[in-house]
């Protein structure tokens, strides 16, 4: 493996500056023996060397710093120019060659393992992998692009470039236009994850802490039909499953009416949003054994990282219907302490007074 691509199984969280948070976390999970679809990172160096191979870096910087953040037309114009530059400029052969080779290797190995015919065209997901620690800043900076069911080496190259181009959405330009040249350059470092597509018929998000109260003994699972995009983007109201980590045991279920789902497009390339037929809409999309499998894996992820996690996953089914959980991403859940503190305010003054007195009186009785 060269300078521009790194396989997931070689990565750990310390590689974040090189491969971005998403790839580093996927690598970390692979190393921990967790079920993650195989794949590789297109490193930060790939984009950096691409920018430096010509005067691209200076031109992009000029576009960004020259844009008027208050003016939508100006931002849109800057966006159009930047995207044209990134998608149009020749990719240095060393970079392009390495990405193509790594994809083909992944594709062929996978085809061999699965026994599939077309060894060079195994579908993958291509996603941006932000280097920024702060997820909120990353979303401003436009590093949240995802392309599903990408097939073949040419398309992979195209989508990698589109991930790079996604750094230059109008709002990302506005975000960086107020920065110094050095800051703006740093804020536009990006890596890309290329990962085998999970053949998900159900997908969703698991929190290993209650998103409503910050209770760490709780697991919350949101799930809907099809690929996970629908849940993550909020396009459907997902089913909610609440579990206690002891057991784990299911404590409550709320079945939503799930109107839409993302499925692979008929041609085998890309995805499409379609209506869910009536017979499946109001049906629980997860069975109890599937929930237990999800909860079990979520607990392993949490244990590995040592703090509450927000996990994206997909559920594949073998030909005989055996469910298999695939992890697509895991991030630390950082808001739970805040929520817990808000909830703690419910303790009334009368109660906290009494408890204060008891605590004081009980000092010395340590048993």
């Amino acid at each position, binding site marked *: 493996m060269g300078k521009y691509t790194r396989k997931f199984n070689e990565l750990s969280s310390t590689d974040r500056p090189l491969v971005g948070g998403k790839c580093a976390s996927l690598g970390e999970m692979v190393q921990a023996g967790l079920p993650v679809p195989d794949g590789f990172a297109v490193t930060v160096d790939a984009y950096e060397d691409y920018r430096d191979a010509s005067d691209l870096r200076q031109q992009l910087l000029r576009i960004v710093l020259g844009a008027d953040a208050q003016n939508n037309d100006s931002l849109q114009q800057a966006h159009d120019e930047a995207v044209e530059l990134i998608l149009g400029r020749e990719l240095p052969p060393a970079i392009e060659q390495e990405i193509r080779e790594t994809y083909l290797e992944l594709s062929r190995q996978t085809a061999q393992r699965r026994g599939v015919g077309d060894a060079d065209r195994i579908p993958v997901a291509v996603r941006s992998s932000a280097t920024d620690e702060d997820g909120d800043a990353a979303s401003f900076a436009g590093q949240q692009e995802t392309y599903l069911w990408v097939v073949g080496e040419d398309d992979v190259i195209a989508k990698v470039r589109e991930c790079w181009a996604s750094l230059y959405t109008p709002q990302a330009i506005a975000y960086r236009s107020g920065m110094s040249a050095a800051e703006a350059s740093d804020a536009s470092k990006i890596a890309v994850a290329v990962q085998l597509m999970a053949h998900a018929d159900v997908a969703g998000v698991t929190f290993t802490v209650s998103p409503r109260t910050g209770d760490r003994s709780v697991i919350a699972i949101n799930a809907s039909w099809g690929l996970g995009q629908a849940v993550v983007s909020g396009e459907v109201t997902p089913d909610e499953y609440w579990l206690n980590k*002891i057991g784990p045991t299911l404590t*409550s*279920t709320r079945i939503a009416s799930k109107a839409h789902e993302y499925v692979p497009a008929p041609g085998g390339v890309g995805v499409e949003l379609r209506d869910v037929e009536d017979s499946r809409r109001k049906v629980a999309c997860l069975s109890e054994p599937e929930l237990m499998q999800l909860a079990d894996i979520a607990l392993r992820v949490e244990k590995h990282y040592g703090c509450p996690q927000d996990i994206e996953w997909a559920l594949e089914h073998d030909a005989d219907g055996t469910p298999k959980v695939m992890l697509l991403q895991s991030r630390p859940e950082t808001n739970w302490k805040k929520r817990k503190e808000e909830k703690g305010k419910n303790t009334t003054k009368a109660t906290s007074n009494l*408890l204060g007195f*008891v605590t004081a*009186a*009980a*000092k010395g*009785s*340590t048993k």
Partner: protein
Amino acid sequence: MTTTDSELNENSVPVQNGPQERSFPDPYEIETPEGAEGWEEMYAYHNRFLPTRRAEDSAKTWFRNSLHYPEVSYPFDQVTIDGAFTGTGVTNTRVFALPPAKGLDVRVINGYTYMSTIPSPDDEEQARRAEEFGKRAGYYFENWDTLYAEWEGRVTGAIRAVHELEIPPLSEFEAIERVTADRGPSQGNLLLSAYHRLLEHGDQIWTLHSEFLNLGYAAYLQFLTLCKEHFPEIDDQTISRMVSGVDVLLFRPDDELRALARKAEELGVGDLVQAANNEEDLLSSLGDSEAGKAWLASLDESKDPWFNFSYGSGMYHSHRSWIDDLRLPIQAIGDYIVRLRGGDDLRRPLDKLQAERDELVEHYRSHLDEDDLPAFDAALGLSRTVFPYVENHNFYVEHWFLTNFWNKAREFSTLLQTWGFWDDVEDIFFLRRAEVEEAIVDLQMAWAAGGKPQGGYHWPEIIKRRKEIYEALSNWNPPPALGPVPGEVNEPLTIMLWGITPETVERWLTAQDGGSSRTHLTGFAGSPGIAEGRARVVLRPDQLDTVQEGEILVSPVTSPSWTPVFGRIRGAVSDIGGIMCHAAIVSREYGLPAVVGTGFGTSTIKTGQLIRVDGDAGTVTILDESTDV
């Protein structure tokens, strides 16, 4: 376990149309039920709403104490009500100076007990009380185990004293020694004094009862609050499982029955025991053989103290105990023999329960930050220190002591009965404590003079009328609260012990305004699981023998002595119950779903209806309207 969107909406608290428009009935406007005219004379003036105090008493909120006093009070039984409130009051207010809480005002209306909190002290007074509380409660927390052991000695001493209290026979002549030796008080003097001794014990037992109680609850509440701060979604039953002992005195009587079943099998008399319905059957079928006698000896050993176990809360003389009526324990032993033969060893897996409890604690500890562990461990440790008292005081006082107390009162009644005061020994309970004293003075005077007491000419009419009144009051449906809607319900012990929260108050108001569902009840999730079955409404302990295999028990409140019945039912629903509720504890022990504190279970559900108990969600649903009425 599945809730739909529409159900979630139903559970949300409705918007109030201005709180000033809503209130509970004014206690002074409560009407006397037809046929109960004159009920007031059954209770002392201090228990009644006095017209001259209306401005003050109408301005307060009064909660019905249906947890301890679900039934109409008998005039004599008011001894335990007054005593219990005095005990809590003095312990909070005068002994430990609990800073934020004093005692309760108590009133009886139409025979039912209502209570109202004495306002919390202001900040300055609380600070003063806190200083005292620190010294006093601190002493108890530090020396808890020693003090608790001493307490057990004092309580069993009081029980023995009542049991052994001698009632003079009022014989024709005083003993010769009265002349030649002691020259002490007469049998008449001693009779009055014995009655005073009985009342003294009946009064002082409540100071003992309360001695550790609120300290124990406060310590437990501390742990509970801490758990909820860290784990906002944890349920109360999980918290109590982390604290509660696996070997609790209240399970002991049931354990004795299991042991007796095993013993019967060992001795080869299982068939005879199983065929018996009552004590006479046992004596006649077992009295002749050696094995039979050996088993009867074991029974006698178990009976004292373990059958001093009330069929009800113990608070009413009418509840009686196993030791007074052996039918339920005998039937239960029979059931256990059947289970033994089916291969069940009947042993409660104490080690396993203990291991589960430790595992549960470890689980929650593992989700705490390092910094939070010391406080968690300290609060858990203190809770476990206080819990044996919290769990066991009930057996000592409400069951063992009160069984003896009521039976001693019956001994006085028997004496009065032989002197023509009344026909039925139970009649004494229709007299107030002060009236019983008058009757005893009457008897004392007549016996002394060699004449005939007035009682037989006075009491029978009054008792007859009071029985009619009692019946009429029993059919009345007392509101859960009286007076204005409370501004805020926040006194933590009230919330924990009575299950009175802002949500309960809201539910009561909704039900009162006709807004509650006739097929759907909400309560506390007492014990997990879901069960469906025919309802059996049991309002009083003497209806217990109507419970059939596979039914769901619906009752105002359950007593620990009903435990053997839990082997027969599929689930339980109670009107009353906070988190320390017995129905919940026993249901968990038996793995039965239970919903407690529904408020209106017994008035909504009819015997024979098919109902679903959801012990996870805390709901009860009536599935059909059919009844066996």
